[in-house]
């Protein structure tokens, strides 16, 4: 009897520890590749480098960073970029996915073509887009520089000054370079978003659409009351993807505008690169990285709350 109880107790302990043991490899990997860099970044944000080594400086890096003009400017630029990038990519992606969902002839071929931008590195896309509009020497510079099309002196995308802001110092309307950056970034992100939405659209039964049409619903009504609600969880996933890439990606800015002209496209991710790898202010760069992580969490959390996607998908 006692022997039986002991065995049962041992078995129960094993049952409890087995899941932990099974999870251990994954936990170790997570600790090494995710938690360690995250905690190291937080630690680094509280340090400053001196010839003798690292020294704890409290919140100095945050204070110094917040007091720079470029930090404040980069917040405005990030908002403008993010809104433009998300709105343009999501709406174009939805339109393209809807067109491809109508069983066009050669739709497979169009899909293959559409996928090309996604296969290119963003840094390469930025370089190509930059070459197109170099003043005087770019392929498109002749067209853009035509005063008849862009009065009074034509448009030089990479060097044109930003228009006077409408709302205090908030950078709106954006500089032509920012608009161009949004276009280039959307061009690259479009295939993925389109495919994501197309896959979701293909799950909607045609019978529902047909029934709605018989009941007299027009295209806009169908989109608004049937299609969008049914693909809403996918739209939110697409939105998360765009928020994260929009806030964090630096390759396109690096190769297309390098933050310019002046500081007109200095978004937070580029400021982070600049602080870390151009100014070698690793402490301040880490402080900005922590802030950006908080921004990402806030945006994702806010989006989940507003869309209540967790409840809808539950």
């Amino acid at each position: 009897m006692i022997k039986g109880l002991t065995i049962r107790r041992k078995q129960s302990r094993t049952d409890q520890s087995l899941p932990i043991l099974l999870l251990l490899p994954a936990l170790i990997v997570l600790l090494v590749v995710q938690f360690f860099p995250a905690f190291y970044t937080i630690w680094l944000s509280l340090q400053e480098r001196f010839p003798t080594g690292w020294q704890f400086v409290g919140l100095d890096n945050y204070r110094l960073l917040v007091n720079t003009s470029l930090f404040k400017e980069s917040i405005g630029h990030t908002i403008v970029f993010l809104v433009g990038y998300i709105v343009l990519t999501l709406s174009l992606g939805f339109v393209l996915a809807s067109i491809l969902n109508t069983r066009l002839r050669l739709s497979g071929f169009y899909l293959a073509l559409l996928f090309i931008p996604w296969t290119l590195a963003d840094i390469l896309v930025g370089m190509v887009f930059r070459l197109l509009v170099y003043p005087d020497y770019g392929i498109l510079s002749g067209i853009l520089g035509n005063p008849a099309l862009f009065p009074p002196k034509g448009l030089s995308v990479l060097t044109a000054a930003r228009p006077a802001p409408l709302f205090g110092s908030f950078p709106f309307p954006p500089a032509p370079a920012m608009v161009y950056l949004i276009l280039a970034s959307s061009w690259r992100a479009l295939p993925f978003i389109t495919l994501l939405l197309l896959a979701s659209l293909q799950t909607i039964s045609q019978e529902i659409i047909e029934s709605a049409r018989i009941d007299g619903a027009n295209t806009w009504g169908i989109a608004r009351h049937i299609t969008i609600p049914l693909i809403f969880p996918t739209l939110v996933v697409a939105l998360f993807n765009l928020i994260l890439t929009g806030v964090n990606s630096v390759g396109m800015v690096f190769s297309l505008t390098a933050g310019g002209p002046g500081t007109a496209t200095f978004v937070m991710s580029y400021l982070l690169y600049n602080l870390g790898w151009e100014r070698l202010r690793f402490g301040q760069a880490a402080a900005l990285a922590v802030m950006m992580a908080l921004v990402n969490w806030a945006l994702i959390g806010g989006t989940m709350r507003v869309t209540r996607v967790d409840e809808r998908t539950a």
Partner: protein
Amino acid sequence: MNAHGKSGLMWLAVSLMIVLALVLSACAPAATPAPSQPTQAPAQPTPAPEAKVFATWYQFDQENTDPASDEAVGNAWLRENMAKFNEAFAGKYKWVNTPKAWDKMDAELIAAVQAGGEVPDIIQITDFKIPMHAKNGSLQDLRAWAEAQPWYAGMDPQALKTCTGPDGGLYCIPFAEIPYVVFVWADLFPNDYPKTIDQFLTEAERLKGEGRYIMTYFGSTDKGGSGATRGVWTVISSFGGTYDDGKGNMLLNTPENIAAIEFLRTLTVKGYVPEVTFAGGFQEEEAFKDSSAASIPTALFGYRYLRPLTAPDGTKYETMTEQDMLKAIEDGKVVLRPFAAPEGKKPSGGLSARGVGIPKGAKNREAAEAFINWVLTHSDIAADYALRGESGLPVLFAAYDQPQFQGKLHQQAKAVVQASALRSWRGSLERTAEAQMIIMNAVYKLVKEDVTADIPTVLKQAEDEYNAGK
């Protein structure tokens, strides 16, 4: 628990431990193979000891033999000198170079030193990066060792000074001095390149009437604001301006600087410089290459990159190598000149030293010292280093008169140096990377973005921002 479950759990635990041990062993440094047990006395002669690796980081790639490559001259120099060095130190050292991007190398080194990663024994260094390295503790102080070497007394003291950190340590050994000069299409200036600002503006108007620009320069904020160290510094320093107060603070709001900015602003507003001046990515060079712009202030090493060339009379230099510029200079199509300066002022521009440093944590300092001695005790090698390795003028006096420096390019460069008061832009500033960016953002705003902005206000804001940081 039954026996089957128990043994399964044991196997799982053992497997995990093996995986963990493998992971840990992969992270550990490679073990030195244990010496084999002596058996019998070896019959063969003892093999020569293996040469120790001498590791370097240069912006050049010894494997790249493409003559049209941007760094073709440096690549060839490195390739040939690696062979020479390996021959001179056969059996002792073997030079292994890792090519690095010129604008990322310093950051990589600092990160590597701080993380305890692999560092080279020698790294190519530009003088204005010295304060940054000194702050980050990434380079060794070579003063005591250098002062004891026979070549030390024969070096240009000015160049040695630029290698000195804020704490007085000598953090690099300079091999070349790079003067900033103006490359000029000679045919476009029948009365020679203007010497005063008034003459410059008169010539600018004349050239505009002919459908050309008087000048192009690096006017964008690209490359971390390095434009502040190039053409912009040439103009500001020629006006007698400065970026610092001599005590480590930024000083921009001075009458000389304001006059220089007004001059640059005039060039923009009146259309005397092409739009591509402000595009970044070194695209401003295109306007000089096709002679739509009559001059370009840049470093002497610019001759390597300004190619292909089309002279104002249509003559083409299209080998796509540095020979294009050398031939254009030989033909008298391109000449080197100092920049214009206001009446009573001496023209100026940048002067930087380039050489090598020994990183902290370098495994083979002995080889690094041998390398430096090898270069500086052979005037021909030192001359070749300055000529092809850095495309500058030698810092070692003995190398100055080597035949390589008697060509038109270097004779004209020496004349520019003598006619100008060239100086380093960094002065007493320590956070040079931050400084150049803040300066260039302010200059760009005033010269291009908002030509009505109040110059003293913007300059004051910029210097305040730098001085508030630490």
